């Protein structure tokens, strides 16, 4: 990510140290991960010690310190989805993408994570791509969902 873009985001928040998390979240959502250079830039511009920035980005799961794919797939393995066959959906997606949960493919296209309940159990098994929810998933339907994403 370009330094100019990071500076723009920081300026938008008037370089307020109290906006640290907001700034980091915006960089994360645009860039999909937080490179070390970005953290250093934020630390310097907002006058927040790097130790503090590091503490925060390692504390919240929303931040990633390793490259992430352009699209984030979450497969729910919460109780309700689990009993409705989430494991088979997960296995199937893992096979399709060739990556395991927690990993990112080499083209940086997809990252795969499991989550424990996204709050719409009646739709289970649930899979979510970039925040869009796909309910009543079945192993046979995952390929159709995934091919919509470039």
């Amino acid at each position, binding site marked *: 990510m370009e330094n100019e873009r990071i500076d723009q985001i920081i300026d938008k928040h008037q370089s307020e140290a109290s906006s640290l998390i907001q700034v980091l979240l915006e960089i994360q959502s645009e860039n999909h991960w937080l490179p070390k250079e970005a953290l250093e830039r934020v630390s310097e511009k907002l006058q927040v*010690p*790097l*130790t*503090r920035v*590091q*503490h925060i980005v*390692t*504390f919240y799961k929303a931040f990633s310190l390793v490259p992430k794919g352009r699209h984030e797939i979450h497969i729910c393995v919460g109780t309700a989805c689990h009993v409705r066959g989430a494991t088979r959906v997960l296995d199937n997606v893992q096979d399709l993408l060739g990556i395991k949960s927690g990993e990112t493919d080499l083209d940086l296209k997809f990252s795969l994570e499991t989550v424990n309940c996204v709050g719409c159990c009646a739709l289970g098994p649930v899979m979510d791509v970039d925040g869009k929810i796909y309910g009543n998933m079945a192993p046979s339907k995952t390929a159709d969902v995934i091919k919509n994403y470039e």
Partner: protein
Amino acid sequence: MREILLQIDGKEVKAREGMTVLEAARSAGISIPTLCHHEKLEPYGGCRICIVEVEVRGGTQIVVSCVYPVEQNLVVRTRSEKIDRIRKMILELLLAHAPDAFALQDLAKEYGADKDRFEKEASFCIHCGLCVRYCAEVKKKNAVGFVDRGTRREISFIPEIASKECWNCKECFPLCPTEALQAAFVLTKALYSPPHPGPEPRG
């Protein structure tokens, strides 16, 4: 500043408004064990070994003395069966992380804590935060901080800062109740290769 009278272990103690129970006790020569407290640092309340019993509205309450402010006529007990039991448990939990820490061993003897009660999870750090806070508050260098959370939380040096500042300071080393701090520093030093190596050796 207003003077406050309170009672600690049956003794009348004079304190100033804004003092903590721990400070008041120490000023009267009453000792309360602490692990994460340091006079030069802001109260932290991380280790909980300094808990005491206070009487409030007819009942007793367990409070953390290093962050609890004194109140007029407060009645404090620094030892009781219950407090000893809790301190023993805290020590046993901490000893699972740092079984060889002298500070913990001494307290363990006093409270009869068994260092083998819980399965060892030797991370060596008990998260007292003394190193992190000392570096930030006193030295203002922020060379070391915490990363991650829960059971995976650990201290981490910023190599670029550590390589410049720490070698001549190391004032945090003696503060650490375990050996974790020094180990982390040595590791950082070993792993860090500065981006600009010195001039090529002439040959």
